[in-house]
């Protein structure tokens, strides 16, 4: 065994340039694999978080863009008069918007002030922030990322030009920058203030883009998903009720279906890494065919030769895999790249599990890449090989 380790080390050190190039040729596709899978994991985690929130999304049956009357809220609440199973119903109206002098699009939603905190507990508002929110109709919670980009802070008066009616500047008072919220992009303002402005402007009022319904448990989620739709069957504004995960997933799959496409890309990168590693191992075997023949003639068996080539390939790819997996982990955890944002999943978090998976894949690449050369070594006929000895 000791001989095998010494031989392995010597082989890798014998051609350091080749060792280095092979490690790099494996490491870089593994980096792409880790980045792609981190985005896919981010989407999955985002969807899992949505599942954990036990919320239903209620939209218009015909299309998400068609609004629903705000009166639907009372009818949904009436499905559980005790309020034990349907904890909160919150109407949301899309505002979008931008600053008056800056075309950067904002993500702003007007929400029912009284049920917002109960329906979206992941916003983690402090008691003080909540009090300001309840007291001031012009209150707005700015996502901390947006606040940083726009230079807004608590106490500021900010003006947003909505992308929808009433198409006139709306003035808000920043009461929070959602320091502990998972979502750090979206801004939340009060719908009663928006309704007041819509009324003054003579625009269509009393409509919401969708409702979010917070349920007490999984069973309630399943029960009310059907119950809410049944409640509005036959009405002018029928609803389509989905759990939040399904609702969000519809958006994701319609926008290039990034998780599927990135998974395909990750598969391709693994294939590229296999090809690169197989190339090296075939070159190594060809260069050392004489040595393998000599070893066999000295009495070492086919298994020894097989194991030698397999372990060399495994080690090379494991080193490449470790570098390729750890480089993005370090970059996106400890450098300014950690602030890099992607729509919906927001920060790109490289999970240790993803790195571990990538390293295991790199080792599998090593095994696969050496299958042919090691089999050749195993089956090598000593006499034939030595005859070719130069």
């Amino acid at each position, binding site marked *: 065994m000791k001989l095998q380790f010494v031989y392995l080390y010597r082989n890798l050190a014998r051609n350091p340039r080749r060792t280095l190039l092979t490690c790099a040729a494996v490491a870089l596709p593994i980096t792409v694999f880790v980045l792609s899978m981190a985005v896919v994991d981010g989407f999955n985690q985002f969807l899992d978080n949505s599942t954990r929130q036990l919320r239903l999304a209620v939209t218009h049956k015909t299309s998400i863009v068609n609004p629903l009357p705000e009166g639907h809220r009372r009818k949904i609440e009436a499905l559980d008069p005790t309020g034990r199973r349907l904890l909160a119903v919150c109407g949301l109206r899309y505002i979008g918007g931008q600053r008056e002098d800056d075309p950067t699009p904002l993500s702003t939603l007007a929400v029912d002030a009284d049920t917002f905190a109960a329906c979206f507990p992941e916003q983690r508002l402090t008691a003080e922030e909540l009090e300001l929110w309840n007291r001031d109709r012009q209150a707005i919670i700015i996502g901390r990322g947006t606040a940083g980009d726009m230079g807004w802070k608590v106490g500021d008066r900010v003006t947003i030009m909505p992308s929808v009616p009433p198409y006139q500047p709306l003035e808000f008072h920043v009461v929070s920058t959602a320091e502990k919220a998972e979502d750090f992009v979206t801004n939340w303002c009060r719908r009663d203030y928006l309704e007041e402005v819509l009324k003054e402007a003579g625009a269509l009022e009393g409509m919401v883009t969708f409702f979010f319904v917070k349920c007490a448990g999984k069973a309630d989620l399943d029960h009310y998903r059907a119950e809410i739709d049944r409640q509005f069957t036959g009405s002018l504004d029928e609803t389509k009720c989905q759990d939040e995960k399904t609702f969000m997933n519809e958006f994701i799959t319609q926008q290039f279906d990034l998780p599927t496409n990135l998974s395909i890309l990750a598969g*391709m990168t693994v294939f*590229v890494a296999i090809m690169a590693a197989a190339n090296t191992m075939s070159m190594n075997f060809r260069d050392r065919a004489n040595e393998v023949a000599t070893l066999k003639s000295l009495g070492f068996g086919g298994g020894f030769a097989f194991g030698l080539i397999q372990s060399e390939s495994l080690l090379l790819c494991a080193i490449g895999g470790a570098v390729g997996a750890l480089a993005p982990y370090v970059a996106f955890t400890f450098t300014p790249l950690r602030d890099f944002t992607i729509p919906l999943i927001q920060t790109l978090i490289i999970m240790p599990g993803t790195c571990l998976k990538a390293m295991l894949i790199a080792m599998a690449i090593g095994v696969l890449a050496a299958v042919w050369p090691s089999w050749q070594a195993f089956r090598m006929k000593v006499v034939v090989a030595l005859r070719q000895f130069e």
Partner: protein
Amino acid sequence: MNDPEQYVGLPLYYNWRNLLARRLSTALTFTVVAVLVAVLAVLLSFAAGIRASLTASGSALNVMVLQTGATAESTSIVNPDEVGRLIQTPGIASDAIGQPLLSQELCVQTSIPRRGQAGALANVAVRGVDPAAFSVHDEVRIIEGRLPAAAALEIIVGKAAADRFQRLDIGDTVELGRAGNRFYKVVGIFAAGGGALESEIWAPRTILSDSYDRRFVSSVVMRIQGAGFAEEAISYVRGSAVRLNARLESDYYIELTSKTRQIVTLTTILIAIMAVGAVFAVANTMYAAVDGRRREIAMLRTIGFARRSIVVSFMIESLSVCVVACLFGLALSLLINGSRRDFLSDTTWTVLAYDLRITPGIVLAALGLATSVGVVGGLAPALRASRTRIIEALRKS
């Protein structure tokens, strides 16, 4: 060959034989570069397809009017009194009977299942139009069936929408309206020069307004007499007489192409990392080739081939593998050329169907990438080969 540094090229046959002598190694390097090029081409074809579809949309002779502050037709409300003021717009073109070419359009959306994907719904745009729309959007023409009859619950469907979404063939019925209880019959399929309008469903505006209980339009598109009238017309609409937002229709669609910039950025980052990996793979192969042919190189130098000839020869080898692999990768990517996809615009909140396109620009980008990989990966080994010490290498033989 008296001058030792005189350049005399090695025959290409020599390079070809050398590549064949290391078949497996050549094939594996070839595969790495071919996959890299195919991935690059496929990723860029998404952006090219969307860009081609959007830039083919809209005319530079049309002025599109939205409500001030609205970023897209789906969030715009233009009231009838505002439409009335637009008739006075300077430079507006007229039809044969002197009516201003002004198309009032109502945009709503409906969810329609995609073909071949059970349960996957797409948010498809439904545009309510008057007959004037066909003069203003003169690229729109019926390719199958007929136009909707006046005051009938009938629709025509864009070619891309009919291909991509279910139940949009002629004779099918689509449920539209605020309550989804108006049954519109598909009576025609239209083309729009490959532009975004081909992803839409068109219905008579008054009937659609009634179905959705809408008393306004989303946008107004005006045909102007010539490109020279555009500035004046836009200023008029933005000015105190109308106070709406106007821009060239072509500019509106070009602004929607911003999504493609994200795809190109993502593609560039991922491909750059993969390309560096490919450079290492090529360099590895070429170093192995140099190491294995040291005596051969020394012999070539002895019989008078200059260092430059050796460098060029190895570069030809490296480049040939990469360029041929590139052509193979491009041929692979052509398999998806023209296949139809769609995406949900986060500006309009409707889906845009587009064809994946392998454009000449993508071919050039792929060739550029493969050439760079070949040059960068092959240069260091080629230089190493040219510096082979003749006596030392020959002594080893």
